[in-house]
């Protein structure tokens, strides 16, 4: 029986830039940063109070796929093809203001939906996330 999800991975175009984005712009904490080879690292981050769930910032390496597939994947990521998940917060307007002030790009400002209030933002690679405050806004 599956009891928990501990890791999820998303593809980033540049691990160094992604690390900067996730730590400085989102305020995440680094859990593991292990060099794997000359260029790539096993790099996981999490929101500050959620250490039991790690987000793996995965580089796109030619050795993983064919060269063509790797190039295609890079293109798809940067085009904003992949929606990765939903983050929740206590107060979406404050979080939206703060993230905007830090230079995070929102593709949709907070909007009331039937399940709460939701905004959409992109990471530095092009992956997008929903930011939500669930329940009555």
């Amino acid at each position, binding site marked *: 029986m599956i009891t928990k999800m501990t890791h999820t*991975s998303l593809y980033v175009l540049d691990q160094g830039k992604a690390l900067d984005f996730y730590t400085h712009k989102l305020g995440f904490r680094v859990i593991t940063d292990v060099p*794997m080879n000359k260029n790539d690292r*096993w790099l996981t981050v999490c929101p500050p109070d959620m250490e039991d769930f790690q987000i793996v910032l995965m580089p796109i390496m030619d050795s993983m796929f064919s060269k063509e597939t790797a190039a295609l994947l890079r293109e798809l990521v940067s085009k904003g093809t992949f929606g990765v998940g939903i983050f929740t917060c206590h107060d979406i307007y404050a979080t939206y203001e703060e993230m905007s002030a830090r230079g995070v790009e929102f593709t949709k400002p907070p909007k009331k939906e039937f399940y709460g209030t939701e905004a959409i933002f992109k990471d530095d690679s092009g992956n997008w996330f929903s930011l939500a405050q669930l329940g009555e806004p």
Partner: protein
Amino acid sequence: MILVNGQNPLLLVNIPPPEMPVLQYLYGMMQEQYPKIYFYRRLVQAKLFIDTHYAESIDLDNIANEACFSKFHFIRQFKSIYRKTPHQYLIAVRMEKARELLKKGHPVTDTCYAVGFESVSTFSGLFKRLTGLSPSLYLAQQQQLKERIRQSPFSYVPGCFAHQKGWLQE
């Protein structure tokens, strides 16, 4: 919209809704948008100020003044958004930075002053209360971990990823 005792605290006078549609729209904007934008902006600026200046001796009264709030009101609104008072939040930021510095191998005393504490014993006590470990033990553990990772990095990566992603072939 934030309400205090059912009232919008940022509107000094309770103006009755006007009758013309355009004015009704503007009135709605005042009720809805004004607090959302300016109210949040001031609180967020205060938080960002703490994020930037945590290492200095921060006077929280000053922050409240800068944000144009009375001290009591400021603390209450800050807490409603961040679930911590400004003081608790400042301590949390300092502790987070301290963890980072200790992880990097900075000595305890240097770390203590670098994140804005003036007394090592105060710093150590708070650190232990929040993390369960004294700063010196945390520092030692992190350095041991780094050494083990240096010696056998692959034992810290789930095998599934290492194999599937072709890491072991390089």
